């Protein structure tokens, strides 16, 4: 029947099954390709892949670095600062918009418009405005996630029932305390939800930018190794990227449960 729940064993089995299926499909694909051309590098065999993994994690002779470590460090720092500034900015803007009608009237139209532009299309604009250094990545991510997040904050503030604000005033709250102790508490879990959704796009902008101007980072490595047809490096990198995104999502969920336990309890 539609919507019928299944036992936990099935959940786990089916999950593992799906992964196995993927691996088997890949193996078949790779074997077929290698039958056609034993030297193929585009769909590497498992042994080629392990070579690629080794290449990525071992200390590289020329650069004296472990590729994955250097790339993960660069990419995650860029992502962190980008998201950090994006979130800070969106909190400020969203809060002001939610609290003051004149800020709302002033900022809503451009924000609603900007939120609809895929920042990837703005990549060229960011190169021009923010240069090509580390600040560029940070600016790009920050501006990329800001419109959507600011809208989220703004809508979340608007959603807070007026009664709660009035009530807080009758309990002796100052204006600042309304913002800090009522609105912010309300907004936080929704903001974290929105951040979780925005990490994906943020990664897209970041990887795309790294592909063009990076000299270290996931995007840089993937483009370079792709051009060199070292798919044995590219695929593991993609898996690492997936795990990276998954880890961030998990961490954000934990953070949400920590700062807003009430939200998870079916508010």
């Amino acid at each position: 029947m539609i919507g019928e729940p299944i036992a936990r064993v099935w959940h786990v089995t089916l999950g593992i099954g799906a992964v196995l299926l993927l691996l088997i499909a890949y193996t078949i694909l790779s074997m077929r390709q290698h039958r056609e051309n034993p030297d193929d590098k585009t769909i590497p065999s498992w042994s080629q892949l392990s070579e690629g993994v080794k290449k990525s994690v071992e200390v590289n002779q020329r650069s004296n670095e472990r590729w994955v470590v250097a790339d993960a460090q660069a990419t995650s720092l860029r992502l962190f600062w980008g998201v950090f500034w994006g979130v800070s900015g969106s909190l400020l803007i969203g809060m002001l918009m939610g609290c003051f009608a004149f800020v709302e009237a002033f900022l809503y139209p451009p924000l609603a418009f900007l939120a609809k532009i895929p920042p990837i299309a703005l990549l060229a604009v960011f190169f021009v405005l923010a240069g090509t250094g580390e600040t560029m990545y940070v600016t790009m991510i920050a501006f990329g996630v800001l419109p959507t997040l600011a809208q989220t904050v703004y809508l979340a503030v608007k959603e807070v029932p007026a009664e709660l604000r009035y009530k807080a005033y009758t309990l002796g709250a100052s204006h600042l305390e309304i913002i800090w102790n009522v609105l912010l508490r309300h907004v936080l879990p929704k903001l974290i939800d929105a951040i979780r959704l925005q990490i994906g796009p943020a990664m897209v902008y970041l990887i795309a930018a790294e592909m063009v101007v990076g000299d270290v980072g996931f995007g840089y490595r993937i483009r370079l190794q792709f051009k060199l047809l070292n798919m044995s490096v590219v695929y593991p990198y993609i898996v690492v990227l997936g795990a990276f995104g998954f880890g961030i999502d998990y961490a954000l969920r934990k953070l949400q449960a920590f700062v807003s336990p009430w939200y998870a309890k079916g508010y």
Partner: protein
Amino acid sequence: MGRIIIFAVCAAALAQTAFAAKPPVFSLAWSEYPSWSAFGVCHETGLINGAAGKLGSIEEKWGVDIELKEAEYDPCIAMYGAGQTDAVCITNMDVLNASLSRPGVAILATSTSYGADACIVSSAIADVKDLKGKKVRGLALSVSEYCFARNLQILGEDPAEYTFVNMDPGAAALAMQQKQADFDAIVVWNPFVLDTLNQRKDCHVLFDSSSIPNEIIDMVVMSESALQKPKGKEFASAVADAFYALNKRMADATTRDDTLIALGEKFSNLDLQSMRKVVQQTKFYATPEEATKLFDSAELKDTMTKVVDFCVKMEIVAKKPVVAFGAGATGNLVFDPAYIAAAAAKP
């Protein structure tokens, strides 16, 4: 009943003949670059019909169906490596790595960089020694880096003392034109060279690929296995034929400018004047004789040794590819002038 059988047999026979009459399809992947855009212009002028199943005049002449696949340069390489195209427009350097997994034959040399790759520096830099401690930006592990390293070598400098930092040439040129901080030197290729020099009069070329003529070679490489297929050699000859046919149009004063404009249309927004310069800096091997001369020269062997060594040193290739020369030779990459000759022999 009988009629149905007869009908079916007839239909099958018809299909058979139609199928047999259809020339085999070979694909050529190309990206926008002056001497490679030639194939796109060939399509526009009707010499080749780039769609599979349709024939241009040259395709009819050789009895093959050429399918043109246009893509960015990097995906072209990947397509070739993955066996999704039979031939590809590629440089003599980038083909080495691909040839390790998919042995190929250089069937045609289209042009050589003669100034099209250049190191552009700001006025702060007068001498190559001034570059020490500065970041030189360009696409890593590409002809740009090769051009940079080779020029340093010619100038008697040690490349280890210089820092080459990866950046997309388009982005690097843009940053240079904007005078972004810490941007004193870039190594890029055309159209970015001309573009940057046009936009920033205070910049100058420190050195370029004219010091290493015939070392950076733009060519068409076809996979060994595709070449062995029926009509594979005809395809190779047809590609060469089409290229020379277009070069004739460029040599002819009445069609030259049109052709140049067509070549440059998608390449960049450079004007006719600049495009004239582009084809100077990207020196076409416009006739079969020029290309044959290159393929037969001892100089090419020397060049390829240098390029291979560079690739090995930079870990662009995992192992040394075997480069061979002349008809019948075997190796990962074979320079075979036979198809150029075949095209020339069948006017």
